[in-house]
């Protein structure tokens, strides 16, 4: 039964022109689709093909292409298979449609992506900050945010070379640190 459904779905999706379809194995399907068509695809998958479980929405920042890739992982409890729908949207202005009306869990993922990547989802119920409520910097998951530089600029470090160690070193012992390792 579930095999048949899978095959039916494969046939169906292969016929649609605007999408790229790729079956990885019996349980994983990758679909690449234009951003305009993605909600329609998800509606189809959810409504007609029983992909009721939104496992995750992932955002990938392809900074060289100046694009965000959004990946919607949906799972079907009936056919036991997972469809990953990939779509790419422009980094600027970074606005996309919410799929909250189809999948309730989308609210969390979209909110998360909003604060981590600065990508805004229209129609999402809650775009308030959640994890980074007390963070004033840029969205940190963007590739152009350099965490290490920020850390070096903001925080100071524990002195790894205290007086007692210097005393030991003066006697000719201690831990040696190569100059290039000193930060």
């Amino acid at each position, binding site marked *: 039964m579930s095999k048949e459904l899978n095959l039916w779905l494969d046939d169906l999706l292969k016929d649609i022109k605007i999408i790229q379809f790729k079956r990885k194995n019996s349980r994983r399907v990758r679909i690449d689709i234009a951003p305009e068509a993605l909600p329609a695809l998800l509606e189809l998958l959810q409504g007609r093909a029983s992909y009721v479980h939104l496992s995750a929405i992932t955002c990938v920042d392809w900074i060289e292409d100046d694009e965000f890739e959004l990946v919607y992982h949906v799972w079907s409890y009936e056919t036991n298979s997972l469809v990953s729908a990939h779509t790419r949207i422009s980094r600027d202005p970074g606005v996309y449609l919410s799929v909250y009306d189809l999948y309730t869990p989308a609210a969390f993922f979209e909110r998360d992506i909003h604060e981590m990547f600065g990508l805004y989802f229209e129609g999402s119920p809650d775009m308030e900050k959640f994890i*980074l*409520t*007390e*963070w004033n*910097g840029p969205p*940190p998951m963007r590739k152009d*945010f350099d*965490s*290490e530089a*920020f*850390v070096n600029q*903001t*925080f*100071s*470090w*524990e002195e*790894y070379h*205290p007086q*007692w*160690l210097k005393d*030991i070193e003066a006697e000719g*012992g*201690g831990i040696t640190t190569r100059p290039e390792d000193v930060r």
Partner: protein
Amino acid sequence: MNELDKIPVRQELSVAEGNVKRSNPLANVFDELVRFCQSRSMFMLHYCTGCGAIELPPAMTSRFDMERLGIQPMVTPRQADILLITGYVSVKTLKRIILTYEQMPSPKYVIGICSCTVNGGMYWQSYATAKVLKEYLPVDIYIAGCMPRPEAVISGLRDLMGDIKSGRADNWKRYFQNYDHYLGNQQKLFGEDWQTPTDIIAEAEHYGLMTDQTLGEHTALLQKHQQPLEALEFSLGEKREKIQGENPREKNNE
């Protein structure tokens, strides 16, 4: 001799004020009794600030049983004596930790558990975690490890007990005495309008712990931003209105 043995475990920073003997021998005995009781009854705050907290339940429960040593978990900072910082502190948590620490009644002790409290640990790259805990709070004891085992935690607590008994564990006084220093570090991280509801300066004055290090440029900045949170003393007459009139904020509004 191994060189590691030469490394002092404890950093003697200054002469501990708590250790100053009083001239009256009876008072000395009394002080010792009090310190003994303080060391044998430590209430620890129930605040899982980081992942090291996972080793606290084993230390508390049947296998290691902290209550043997008189250590009990307590719910609110008001009842607690020791604040265990169990691991990395994100900036958001650090604000709560400082709030909590200031609400604790002294003598209070801070224990930094896990390597992250020393120098950021494996999150040294992270934009979200504060690295050196002792810049923001006076830490009494570090228990290193990622994460330290329950035995290590208990051993650290026993060291603290020894310190309390001998009067050496008085870092809480340092917070009052060097408030400007700590506040400066906090302001650097949280922005200059940072304030907590606890009026540390007034408390230092109340308990006679003011030094010339207590006040400084940072506390001046604090007082500029702070709406003074005076205790609601009761009043029978018109006193209130005067205070309202002197309210600096209202003046600013005009």
